[in-house]
Structures are given as C-alpha cells and as structure tokens.
C-alpha cells in the first residue's frame, strides 16, 4: 500500500510538472515582415508581406508561424496577380504556415544573439513538408527579435514554373523573416 501511495504521488507530481512546463510564457510576433526574393540573371523579383504572425512558447519551444499569401506586395501589379492566380493559387491555399519546435531555445534573459534551429512542418501551396530551418534570436535590453533566412525549392511545393518564364523566375526562392516578439498576456 505504501509503495502504491508513493508511486501515486510520484506520478501525480510528474503530471503536475508536465502541466506546468506546458504553461510557459507565450511570445507573440505581430506584423512580421516576410520577404520573398527570386534572383535570375534576367530579373530580380521581390515581394514583402508585413502582416505575418509568429507565436512561440518559451517553455515547450513550440512555435507557429502564419502568413497570408494575398498580403504579399509586389512592385508590379501584374506579377502580384500572377503570383496569387497562377503560382500560389491563394484562393485555394490562402496561407503559408510553419508548425514546429525550437530545438535549442536559449534563456531569454541572456542578452545575446543566439543561433537556433527550427524543426517542424512547413505548409506552402497546400503541400506539407518536414523541414529544418536555421534562425536567430537577438535579445537586447529592450526587445527580443527573431530572424530567419532560408531557401525553398518551388518544385518541392508543387509550384510549377512554365518553360517560357523559367529564365525569369528562380527555382529556389529566398525567404527572409524578421519580427519583434512581445510577451503575450492572456
């Protein structure tokens, strides 16, 4: 009986610990800048969205990123229409998302530039892919910034580039994400 009691409290304590660890501070990055860039010898194409959102949990390291495809602004209106209509099909797939975990989340009270690794599922154009993305967290006295820069292959996400414009659009698109995190109060 005593052994059972002991293990009962042990297990209770263990679950209590888990539930506490799940309840960490959530940090929210609103109005996140997401830049997509395609470089070819013929043409550089750039588009920026400034309405992406990122949330991560300080304890569990879980992170969720979402950006609306229609929020990308191009220098040329026709390009923006083609991007939505032909390539991203934003009526059918309105968002791009990342759902994952920060592998080596640093202590957020230490002022430094920390290299981190994100592991999880990136969903673009309705295609889910397991990815490992490098990123940095920059902690200064008055703010916490997040930055990431990585490349994705159009073909991985079923984004077809017709042969006629293959010289104008790069097969690999460079993505840069910059945000500022604020503690989220419930």
């Amino acid at each position, binding site marked *: 009986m005593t052994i059972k009691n002991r293990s009962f409290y042990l297990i209770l304590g*263990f679950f209590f610990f888990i539930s506490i660890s799940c309840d960490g501070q959530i940090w929210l990055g609103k109005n996140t800048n997401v830049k997509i860039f395609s470089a070819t010898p013929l043409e550089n194409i750039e588009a920026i969205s400034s309405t992406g959102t990122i949330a991560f949990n300080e304890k569990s390291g879980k992170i969720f990123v*979402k950006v609306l495809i229609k929020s990308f602004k191009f220098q040329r209106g026709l390009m923006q229409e083609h991007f939505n*209509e032909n390539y991203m099909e934003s009526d059918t797939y309105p968002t791009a998302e990342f759902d994952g975990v920060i592998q080596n989340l640093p202590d957020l009270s230490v002022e430094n530039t920390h290299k981190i690794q994100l592991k999880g599922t990136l969903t673009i154009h309705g295609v889910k892919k397991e990815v490992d993305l490098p990123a940095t967290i920059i902690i200064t006295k008055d703010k916490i910034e997040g930055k990431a820069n990585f490349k994705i292959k159009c073909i991985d996400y079923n984004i077809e580039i017709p042969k006629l414009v293959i010289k104008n659009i790069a097969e690999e698109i460079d993505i840069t994400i910059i945000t500022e995190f604020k503690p989220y109060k419930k």
Partner: protein
Amino acid sequence: MSFFKLIFLGGFVLSTLSLMAQDDDLSKLVDSASGPIVNDPVIATFKTTRLINLSTIEQVKRGELDFRIAHRFGDLAGNAGGASTFFGFDNVSDIRFSFDYGIMDRWQIGIGRSKGAEYFGQGQVFDLNTKFKLIQQRKNGFPLAISLHGGLTFTSKESNHALSSIINFDKTIAHRFNYFGQILLARKINDRFSIIIAPTIVHRNLVFLGDNNTHFAIAAGARAKISKRVAVIADYYQVLNVSSFQKAIDHQMPIGLGLEIETGGHVFHALFSTNTGLVESQFLPYNTAKFTAGQVRLGFNISRIFTILKDK
C-alpha cells in the same frame, strides 16, 4: 493495481490532451492576433481587359501599359471564303492596335487605331476609351464587380461628297464622331468560371435614313478555365432597338468564341467571330456577317504588358 493503472492512464490521457490543447492554442492565438480574413478582394475574374468583342472588368494595373494587336481575317467559308482565299487568310477584315495605360489600379485610359471594317465605306478609325472600376467583388462582401467603360471614335477618312453617303463629312466635323458607353457587371463564380453582363449604349452622329442614332444593347460574356493558363472565352451582343434600316440590311448580332492562352506577360486569343469590325460603334450597328452563311472568321488578339512605373 487496477487503481494505479487507472490513475496512470487518466493522467497520461490528460497530459496528452493538455499538450494538444497547447498546440491548438498557439495556432488559435496566431489566428486571433492576425485578425480574420475579411473583405478579401476577388482578383483575376478575367485574364485580360477584353474577351473577343466585349471588354471585361479587368484593367491595366497602375503604371502598366498594355499593347494590344487585334486581327480579324476574311470569311472562313461562303462566297468570299473557302479554299480559294485559304479560308479567309488572304483577306483582312479589320486590324486594331491599341495602348491602354493604368493611371490608377481603378482607372485606365486607352487609345487605339483600327483599319475599320469598311461598313458602307466607314473606316480609318481612331478611338479613345476609358474604364473605371466602381466596385470590386469581395469574397465575403459585395457579390459583383462593377465598372464603367466608355469612349469615342473619330474617323480620319476623306469625306465622300455624295449626298447619301455615310462618310460625307462636309456638313460638320461632328459627323466623324461616334460614342459608346457600358456598365460592366461581372462575377467570378468560382476559381474557374466567370461571367459578365454589360448594358451598352452606342450613339452615332451620322446615320442612314431609317436608322437609330442611339442604339441600346446588352452584351454577355464568359470565361471558363480549362487548365491553369488556358481558358475558353465567349461573348455575344444583342441590340435591343433594331432599326428598320438594320432590318433592311439583314443585321446580325456579333458572336465571338475563342481560346485564351496566357504566358507570363502575354495573353493570346485564338478566336472565331462573326463580326468584322473591332470597335463598338462599328460592329454593333452594322454587322451583317451571317454565321449560317459561313461568314465567320478566324482572328487573334495579342496583349503584351509593359511596366512603365514600378511601385516602391
């Protein structure tokens, strides 16, 4: 032992539930922080500013220039067609080239020049036109896109001094001008199919005896995508107040049917149309080409977009 197991299982289920809830919370939090998608504008109802004869609610975007060439060959069959004219390729019914420029995303202006279909000698036509987007169709909002489209034509043709001629401009220069106006009502029904209806008015300063100066018409058009970059397009005009003159010349309603192919900055139409003229004040009142008599023609439209001003 069973009690122990129950606690263990219960705790395990609870903890996984709380973990799942946590995941949900993060994505829900992001959703609520980024705000709901409201009033999403519906884009790309049509691929380009025109179907075959009918203009669409699409406009040249701000700072962009649309250079278009429209070409209509001769009759495919019938008296003027057939193998001897290589099914109309030897003849040109009409050619028009035009420049349309987007002053704002909502407002474009354009200038064009066409050979003219030579209906009763009428030809050599300059046209000025403008299109203004009044209302944009929105996903969870207004169900229609509404635009205004209008313009005028001016013929530079030498005046024919015969009293009964439709190209006798001796009396006044005003006789060289014709006008048209349209309300374009369009709806993108789904991502593959769009329709447009356009109440239309055409006014000509100089007409034959028994003809109306002002014609009312209703136009209808549609576009159906058959693949990502290829669509079937069609349009039709119905004149509402057919005049006794038009009855006498056996006036026919303009019909167009074509294939739309899009490649980057180009849009290409390969099409059939009954009417020979390319501007509203020509093909609407004067078309006599009869589909059943083989007076249908091949044609093409080419549109190329140039960027004049870039947004920064």
